């Protein structure tokens, strides 16, 4: 079993803590000149997303987590699982709703997203920063209003709801920033 010493701790390192995969956010080495050394570490639990603070005795060893991030293409959702493929190898993975989390409202077939694998199983999915989706439902806009002030809710083909300017209509393709869930603009296509 691979492991790390606290001396190797740094941002981005993946470790197992209380049986869960975690990512180190930052590590502060603390040592009184004549005393015992400690590592005070900020850690994100990759399963729950929760950030916690922990302390380790210096040079203690901690189990490494086999966590990797791979770019994959989203294929389809069969109702229960979301299926992804590694473009280079055609290797396929299926993720459940829990792993999808918030990503599920943004994904359209063919989108390339980042899949985090833990022991070769999808742990979480990060959608592309920008996606292009078609509006399936929104109130008709006022004629002549191109200012975009105010805005209105619009439902997209994946079910996500974003605020769009009044002039944007049903059937239009728009660009959305998935990190903030915000309308960016009409798509050029």
């Amino acid at each position: 079993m691979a492991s790390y010493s606290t001396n190797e701790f740094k941002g981005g390192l993946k470790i197992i803590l209380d049986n869960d995969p975690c990512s180190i956010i930052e590590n502060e080495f603390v040592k009184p000149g004549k005393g015992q050394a400690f590592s005070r570490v900020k850690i994100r639990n990759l399963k729950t997303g929760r950030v916690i603070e922990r302390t380790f005795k210096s040079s203690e060893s901690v189990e490494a987590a086999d966590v990797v991030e791979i770019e994959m293409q989203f294929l389809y959702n069969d109702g229960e699982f979301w299926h992804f493929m590694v473009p280079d190898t055609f290797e396929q993975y299926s993720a459940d709703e829990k792993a999808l989390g918030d990503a599920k409202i943004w994904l359209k077939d063919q989108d390339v997203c980042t899949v985090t694998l833990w022991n070769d199983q999808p742990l979480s999915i990060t959608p592309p920063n920008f996606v292009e989706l078609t509006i399936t439902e929104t109130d008709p806009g006022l004629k002549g209003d191109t200012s975009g002030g105010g805005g209105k809710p619009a439902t997209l083909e994946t079910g996500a709801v974003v605020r769009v300017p009044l002039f944007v209509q049903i059937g239009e393709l728009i660009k959305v920033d998935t990190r903030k869930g915000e309308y960016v603009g009409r798509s050029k296509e």
Partner: protein
Amino acid sequence: MLGDQRNNSDLFWGPSCSLEILQLRAQVYASIRAFFKHRCVLEVETPLLSQASGTEPTIQFFETHDQSGLKQQALFLQTSPEFAMKRLLAASSGSIFQLCKAFRQGEVGRFHNSEFTLLEWYRVGFDLEALMEETAELLVTLLPSLANQKTLKVPYKAVFKDAVGVDPLLASVTDFSAAADRFELPDAKSICGQDRSTWLDFLFSCVVQPVLVNTPLVMVYDYPACQASLARLKRDDKTVCERFEVFVKGIELGNGFLELTDPVEQNRRFDREIAHRQQRGLPAVVKDQRLIAALEKGLPHCSGIALGIDRLLMLRAGVDDISEVLSFGFGRA
């Protein structure tokens, strides 16, 4: 994949600090030398590579071997110039100071670099009070931000009790453990176990030091006897020792002792620490018999302190990573 995470070699050739900070370091060295010249304290130089090592279980040394002779000889990079400087004192050097490198394995972080610069000085005839006074004067000279600021002097017991809520000398391990729970430090119990000294280090680092961040300059004195290191125990109260530490804005800058001069007690402390090292499976040490011999000949009544010059430069320059005051930080050395 795990191998990739380890591979963080930074191949950039340039320095990790700015040219302004190189100049600032040179200025600070010049001010230190002027300060001691004015006070007739002699600048000395002692070996960095030594045949003996320190014994403290919490300080790990770098060891190398001279293989040029028939018999391989172990040599140690000094973790502090203390032993060699005390041998000079025993040889009647009078008050001395040294600006030098010291090396400690595994100490790398925002405030630590495995190779670092110490200013260490010894004052013959000084008690701890006088040394605290002189340390404050030097710090005010080197750190303009301390001008017109009051130097706070507090016993360890008081500063610990104020921040943690328990008496560091009297509290039981159960009391320490309850305090750790109050401060939401769940790992304390498994790290410290039944070891009082580790409990003190843990709570001081995690609870007391963050409180000191708002204090410009504080000297904490009367350390618990279990943390005496090379300090004398206090004559009228054997539960504490003649040791103080200096903190500027919560950053530990230096550690001073009224020096232990009794060779028998020194030898006993060495043996106790060597036993600790064996228990914990730490690398074996070569006890410094020459220091013991020097103490037998007679170390004058003196006080000494070591200041971390890199941290002092961090404070002076207002940067928050030690590599920013080093020509080449450990990751680029």
